């Protein structure tokens, strides 16, 4: 897939200028890891999906590990 340049963060905007935008500040205050967002914006959409797939493999492994540890699915213990 061809990378859509419009999906990248505007390069003309400096980090300091970005820090001062209301939406950026609100995200920081909410607890969003904006450095992660900035990194993701340097990637193509296809690269972002690959990152997600790689992380998802660990998420699923962590979920299975929790089930093994508790002996049931801690998300719905009453159903186990």
């Amino acid at each position, binding site marked *: 897939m061809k990378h859509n340049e419009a999906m990248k963060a505007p390069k003309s905007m400096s*980090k300091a200028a970005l820090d001062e935008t209301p939406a950026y500040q609100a995200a920081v*205050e*909410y*607890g*969003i*890891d904006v*450095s*992660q967002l900035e*990194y993701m914006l*340097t990637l193509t959409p296809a690269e972002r999906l*690959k*990152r*997600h*797939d*790689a*992380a*998802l*493999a*660990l*998420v699923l*492994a*962590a*979920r*299975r*590990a*929790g089930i*093994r*540890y*508790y*002996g*049931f*699915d*801690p*998300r*719905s*213990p*009453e159903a*186990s």
Partner: protein
Amino acid sequence: MVSTLDLLKRLNEHNVKYILVGGMACVVHGSHVVTQDVDICAPLTPENLSGLLAALAGSNPRFRMTSDLRPLPDLPESLAGFRNLYLITDLGQLDVLSEIAGIGEYSTVERHTIQVDLEGTPCRVLDLDTLIAAKKAMNSPKDRLMAKELEAIRERLGRSGKR
């Protein structure tokens, strides 16, 4: 396929002392969160940093917080004085924290862990009560939301008599 689980395998292979914390730890305890980053608490001693650098070798580790994504140096001495390392690698994102807010440094954190098996990779994970305390100490709306979810899980575990 590239898997972020390989990051933890590599840490184990190089005898890095660490404890899984953050969103991935929340998933172990039943959270629905889908996260991309791996947060670990680890002592940033020369020995542990040496193991960390060896574990990350070849994975193109870079500092995520630098605008030019500066590469991680090869020598542990270069990292002396760092309290945390926010990294991006070809295997995924890794945040190395020397202490956890509301809990303390690694020596304290390691007293509050459970041991799990991540597809053959043994891993120490922050226990549920301590994870909740850590999330509450962070006090951002996102962390408070996570604390609420974990508290609900803890309550359900208690109500079902399975904890």
